[in-house]
């Protein structure tokens, strides 16, 4: 468990979508913290709200969605004249098109997406993508040598074109792209899926963000390529001390990457703990079912592949009480269908949302 200071706090976040057939509560009270330099994994099935949570952090919830409650607090670290101060920014209060949030997007919190095949604009080269981002977010310090031979950073200026290109090549090299001097002028369609994802990481990294949100970054890639990308992400994280919010539905991947894990179901966080505890001492029945569904190589298998029984409920017709109760193996009739479970602490840093651990 990281003892680092907190970077981003998500407090009781609620995001709703107003569609023709009713209201969909895509995120219904999500609470967690991401610390500096830490990797937080968010795991859940499709449609559980993890991607919407990620976008909410950057005020990028697509229409007709809206943040209706809760807060996202970002602790911005400012280094000036050798001292550090924390600037607390309430992201949920920022104008989604305003300058404040645009400064954060890409410059302080970066994001990479699931579909590398189509996340880059087809008519611009890898280099121009990086250059565009860098021109927007990076400022070069104008250094002046004082009488005591100490570098004093007096001012900042924007990056020049040549410098931007240099940075681009350097970043492409860092993400492991062979022949970066040539690749910098490649168009997206000239690159493979794995290479494009590396470019996306390079773009994100070139602005030296404090956190990277990775929304299923390897889901669309081959397993072998996936392994490479995960390696790059881990290496880079160490070198630049960047936090990662890693969203996936793949338990194996999250086991590799995350220090802390949030399990989401139908817009709610149902369990949060360190990765070790989630895997070895899962408390929520949903988490346990998820873990059971991983097939084990080598084990005797007379049993069928375990799956969670039932289906994901209709978002307009949510079950009463605990939203998971129709599919829960430890369902307690009379309780789980009537009472909504609260966020309960069950360990030093282990929280669950389940009536099994609540005193009712």
């Amino acid at each position, binding site marked *: 468990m990281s003892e680092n200071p907190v970077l981003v706090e998500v407090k009781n976040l609620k995001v709703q979508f107003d*569609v*023709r057939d009713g209201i969909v509560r895509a995120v219904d009270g999500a609470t967690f913290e991401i610390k500096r330099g830490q990797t937080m994994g968010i795991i859940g099935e499709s449609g559980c709200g993890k991607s919407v949570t990620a976008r909410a952090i950057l005020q990028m919830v697509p229409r*007709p969605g809206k943040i209706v409650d809760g807060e996202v607090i970002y602790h911005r670290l400012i280094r000036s004249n050798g001292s550090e101060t924390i600037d607390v920014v309430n992201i949920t209060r920022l104008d989604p098109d305003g300058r404040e949030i645009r400064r954060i997007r890409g410059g302080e919190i970066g994001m990479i997406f699931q579909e590398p095949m189509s996340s880059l604009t087809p008519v611009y080269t890898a280099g121009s993508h990086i250059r565009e981002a860098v021109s927007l977010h990076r400022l070069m310090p104008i250094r002046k040598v004082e009488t005591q031979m100490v570098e004093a950073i007096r001012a900042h200026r924007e990056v020049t074109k040549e410098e931007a290109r240099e940075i681009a090549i350097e970043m492409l090299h860092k993400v492991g792209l062979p022949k970066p001097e040539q690749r910098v002028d490649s168009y997206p369609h000239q690159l493979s899926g794995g290479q494009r994802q590396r470019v996306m990481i390079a773009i994100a990294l070139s602005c030296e963000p404090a956190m990277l949100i990775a929304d299923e970054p390897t889901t669309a890639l081959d397993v072998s390529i996936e392994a490479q990308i995960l390696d790059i992400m881990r290496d880079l994280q160490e070198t630049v001390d960047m936090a990662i919010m890693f969203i996936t539905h793949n338990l194996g991947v999250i086991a590799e990457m995350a220090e802390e894990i949030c399990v989401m179901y139908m817009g709610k966080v149902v369990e949060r703990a360190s990765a070790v505890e989630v895997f070895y001492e899962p408390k929520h029945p949903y988490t346990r079912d998820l873990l059971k569904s991983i097939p084990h190589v080598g084990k005797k298998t007379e049993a069928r592949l375990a799956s969670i029984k*039932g*289906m994901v*409920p*209709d978002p307009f*017709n949510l*079950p009463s009480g605990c939203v998971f*109760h*129709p*599919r*829960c193996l430890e*369902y307690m*009739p009379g309780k789980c*269908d009537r009472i909504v479970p609260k966020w309960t602490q069950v360990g030093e840093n282990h929280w669950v949302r389940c009536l099994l651990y609540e005193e009712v």
Partner: protein
Amino acid sequence: MATNETSAAPEAKKNQVSQSYWSLVWWKFKKNRLAIIGGIVVLLFYVCCGLLAEFVAPYGVHTESVFLEAPPQWPRFRDVEGKWHLRPFVYGLEQQIDTATRQRSYVVDTTRCYPIHFFVKAESYRLLGLIKWDRHLFGVHPDQEGAHVYLLGTDRLGKDQLSRLFYGGRISLLIGLTGVIMTLLFGATLGAISGYYGGAVDMSVQRATEFLGAFPDIPLFMALASVIPATVSPLIVYFLLTIILAFVRWGGLARQVRGLVLSLREREYVLAAQSFGASDRRILFQHLIPGAISHIIVIATLAIPGMILSETALSWLGLGIRPPMTSWGVMLQEGGNIRAIRYTPWLLIPILFIMFAVLAFNMLGDGLRDATDPYGGQ
């Protein structure tokens, strides 16, 4: 063991699966208000002009009168003395000829009052070509001497414009419809053959289509239309014209149908390769074929206005429908010159009808396209 799954969810899912493709289309279509309006207007046009023109029009299409190029008579409820009448009426027109300039002009004659009656007995006709009848939707009382009601004025031969609009609409709208059907047959067959066989057949059909496409419309129309001998009956002219219109315009449709057939073929092979069970193939056919048909319906609906406009343009140039047969284009020919605009502007009213019809078709076609698009909507 929990068994009380929410009953709502599986039920809704069952309903969705059992809903056929067409009922889904209809459900989606119903939501689009513009499309419904478009559909109703199109239906109204075809019923009033196509089927019931003889009934709706107060006068026959060939009925001439002495009131040449008379202006519209406005229906009123209130007479010059300020009295309100229950039944609408029009005032008669009196012709005056200026002896010096030999110009004809009309003056409203308030002494002659012609009430408008409904379901009135007038010229007899054959409804739908079969049933002999003589009732008209509205008109003047047959016993009233010298009564006339020209709500939209008359043309150069004294024929009632409103009646001509209905009869002309029949021709214009039917050309639109039959032209597109013929184009479909032509183009769809060729496109299907081209897509299905591929290879040399495909190439040659493609080249032919491109060649026709590179040729400007107007000369083709004009040349082909002017080949029709002058002595041939207007009905035959009508048929030949439809064929000409279909011939010139099949290229676009052929290309689209070819694309459709190609994508259909592709899907079939993919299916075969994945060796689905026979029952699945049936389900997919239940979706594929309706999908193709729906595409064709949309294409056809959106092609009809183009056909109507082509006929209008041709007839306006004098190369299309020949008098005494009338269409909106022919009516425009009379009204669409500078002299007519200055002195008899009411002859331009067909423009309104044309625009309404085209607008309605476009709204309908657009709505159909949205409704049949499987990935459309939010």
